[in-house]
């Protein structure tokens, strides 16, 4: 029997069992998400409604059986109430939002010219430049953040250089400041902004820019009237890729920031590992998720609406 006939028989068998080619293709990622995203999410949700106890695991169970066969479900909302009571959490959220917002803006301002230049480079140079953007990913993220400590600390490379050049006489305190946190974030997240920007800018038809110039627009006008509006999809994608993870960022503020750098990721870590208060930590995680999901969904809806309107 031929190979083809065998394959057809196999396909028929799978079909009889209820498998369709399409459902397998969609099913694999679907079950992956269910297994590694939805179930852990439900576990976290469950813990956020329980009570912290000194035990292993350190939280109470939601379901209890009373002696006479009655099932008691006990939902502890106090964890959420606590987040509002203690101003630490609200200010940590706000401070995270602020840091995420400003670092996204800075990353955008740094990345845009880079992406623009790479998109305009010749094909050979373009690959090398893209490679240079991606190259840092080949070293461990942790290692790279540690390297910044070596650069920024009081007797670090930067201060030594500045002092030997006579620019300052006293070392500048850079470590454990918000400046160091911003620097670390901008450095780390730059490729996430450069790549989507590059993808939209490289697709930009050069004859559109020439048409703008031909119609009397100076280079600056062409940039603001044509290039910038047409790269909005890249700006949105890149900003999302930076803004969302930066809100929950833990490693960078922990290593480069000081005690007054307040970020929700750090608070979460402290709740979880130092205080061993898993329920409150889970509640923080849940609130963070909801706060991030709502704007993303609104943005997506706006995008679908605008793309439907234009087609």
């Amino acid at each position, binding site marked *: 029997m031929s190979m083809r006939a065998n394959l057809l028989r196999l396909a028929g068998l799978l079909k009889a069992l209820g498998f369709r080619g399409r459902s397998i293709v969609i099913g694999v990622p679907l079950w992956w998400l269910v297994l590694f995203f939805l179930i852990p999410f439900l576990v976290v949700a469950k813990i956020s409604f329980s009570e912290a106890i000194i035990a292993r695991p350190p939280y109470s169970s939601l379901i209890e059986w009373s002696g006479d066969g009655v099932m008691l479900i006990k939902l502890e909302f106090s964890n959420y109430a606590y987040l509002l009571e203690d101003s630490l959490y609200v200010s940590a959220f706000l401070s995270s939002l602020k840091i995420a917002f400003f670092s996204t803006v800075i990353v955008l301002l740094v990345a845009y010219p880079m992406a623009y230049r790479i998109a305009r480079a010749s094909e050979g140079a373009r690959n090398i430049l893209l490679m240079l953007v991606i190259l840092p990913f080949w070293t461990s993220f942790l290692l790279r953040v540690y390297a910044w400590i070596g650069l920024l600390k009081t007797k670090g490379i930067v201060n030594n250089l500045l002092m030997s050049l006579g620019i300052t006489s006293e070392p500048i305190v850079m470590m454990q400041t918000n400046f160091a946190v911003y620097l670390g974030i901008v450095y780390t997240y730059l490729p996430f902004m450069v790549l989507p920007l590059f993808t939209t800018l490289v697709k930009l*038809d050069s*004859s*559109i820019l*020439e*048409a*703008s*110039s*031909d*119609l*009397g*627009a*100076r280079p600056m*006008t062409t940039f603001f*009237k*044509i290039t910038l*509006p*047409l790269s909005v999809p890249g700006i949105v994608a890149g900003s999302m890729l930076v803004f969302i993870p930066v809100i929950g960022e833990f490693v960078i503020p922990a290593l480069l920031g000081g005690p007054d750098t307040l970020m929700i990721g750090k608070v979460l870590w402290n709740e979880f590992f130092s205080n061993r208060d898993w329920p409150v930590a889970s509640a923080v995680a849940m609130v963070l998720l909801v706060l991030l999901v709502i704007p993303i969904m609104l943005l997506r809806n706006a995008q679908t609406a605008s793309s439907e309107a*234009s*087609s």
Partner: protein
Amino acid sequence: MENKQTIATGAKPWLDQSEAPFIRISDLTKKFGEFTAVDNVSLEIYRGELFCLLGGSGCGKSTLLRMLAGLETPTSGRIEIDGQDVANVPAFGRPTNMMFQSYALFPHMSVEKNVAYGLKRDGIAKPEIADRVAEMLKLVQLDGFARRKPDQLSGGQRQRVALARSLIKRPKLLLLDEPLGALDKKLREETQFELINIQESLGVTFIVVTHDQEEAMTLSSRIGVMDEGRIVQVGEPREIYEFPHSRFVADFIGSVNILEGRVSEDAQDYVRIRCEEADCNIHVSHGVSCSENQKLWFALRPEKISLTRQRPEGDFNVIKGVVDEIAYLGNLSVYRVALENGKILRVTKSNLDRHSDDAITWNETVHLSWDDNSGVILVQ
């Protein structure tokens, strides 16, 4: 083929010695690295002309156009537009506008905004912009489409937006890069005449780049044929077709039979050529500057040949062959006639008669003949 009178006055300024050219291109060269795209081109174009640059792909016609627009910098040479040397004028400052082959419409702007773009850059007052845009959209028959985005338009509509956008600033010179290239045949034919009408009514000088010789013939007042970066011949469509200067031009414009031969008799008022490959003696009844036994070529258009079963009288301008293939095109039929040595000549015949009982058919032996002045002698 009839030469179209595309200039409103019907004048031919290029024949008038006292007329100053509107565009003067002198010794213009453009090199990309080692490759010479435009090679020492000199050209004069007059006000109100619809000039076509015609040539195959890579002949440098688009590069020449882009240099006029200021989108490429010449390696050497001069461009003068209306007496002004534009060497140091950037694209955004030139009195020219261009219609791009891809149309290059701004995808994020409505039709209206696309067309208004050029006027806004000049800082013209809003009410005037609105008036002029409305007027222009009417001219290209797009009133009612003002608020659409380019991706909501058909190919023909997009083409007209591009035209409107390039005309709105009333440029002294409009450059069109394959303006009809992306349209289907029927639409292209309609649009050709529309383009001529617009050009006539606005009186703007047009330079059109095209690879389509039929389009060039229909549109232009004059054609400049380009090959390998050089202009090989400039002339009115009829001139280019009936009096080509070289085998390249004869072959590029329309269909042609080229016979190679040697001068057998060179008299004051006639020339005779012996063509060995077709076993034929050619008589041309006007003098040509050539010498005895010189090698040259005789170009003969397929429609100028008569096809008969009987050998016509006379010793000259007759070739014998066998019908190898007939292509019926409706209005005319194309005969491929094989000579004894295997060379194929093309002959076209108008299908004047609806019935074809007596028509010459496959494998018949036929005689090809032509008048003394039907062909062109080419020395290059």
